[in-house]
């Protein structure tokens, strides 16, 4: 998985609780991404980061926030989890440090989240 770890790998939580997912990379890639994957849909971008403290929204960002305080870590927070956020969440990295382009993306192993 190209030096990408995600934690936790599985989580069950209740509606209304906050949840934070962590993505950690050892590859020094500039870009980091959070996607969700649901049956019948392609991967959909939630948020991405193009550097430390530099983040932007993706296609399905409502209800999610992110933070990147270090190159290697990208956190995804569900402020108040809802059942519609039950999904598999993937982190991806791309673009070596110093690269101007996003280039190839490599994915982590995923986090399966169930919101009851």
């Amino acid at each position, binding site marked *: 998985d190209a030096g990408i770890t995600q934690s936790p790998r599985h989580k069950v939580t209740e509606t209304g609780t906050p949840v934070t997912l962590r993505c950690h990379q050892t590859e020094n890639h500039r870009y980091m991404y959070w996607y969700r994957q649901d049956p019948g849909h392609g991967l*959909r*971008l939630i948020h991405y980061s193009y550097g430390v403290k530099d983040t932007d929204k993706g296609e399905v960002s409502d209800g999610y926030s992110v933070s990147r305080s270090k190159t290697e870590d990208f956190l995804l927070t569900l402020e108040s989890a809802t059942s519609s956020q039950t999904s598999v969440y993937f982190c991806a990295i791309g673009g070596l440090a110093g690269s101007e382009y*996003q280039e190839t993306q490599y*994915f982590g192993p*995923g986090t*399966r989240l169930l919101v009851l």
Partner: protein
Amino acid sequence: GESVGLHLPTLSVQEGDNSIINCAYSNSASDYFIWYKQESGKGPQFIIDIRSNMDKRQGQRVTVLLNKTVKHLSLQIAATQPGDSAVYFCAESPYGQNFVFGPGTRLSVLP
């Protein structure tokens, strides 16, 4: 494992045969494309990429063909093996912009 896609199109091929998986992309401005393989319960795995200044690119047992005229991408897998069974999806990226991912095709290799 989780269901990557409950109603994905499925391609069934005999072990040893060649597989061709197709993808129609949406944006004529897309200039970079990637094929990913995703096995059940795992993250997408990079297979091969191609830029819009190329029509064909070959890897180990895989070939990607790009037809910009009709916005079509295909992945050819030679001598398909049981380990090739997975969901395959394409991703397109307009210059410098975020990727858009297709829903995928499930490849089933029959013994």
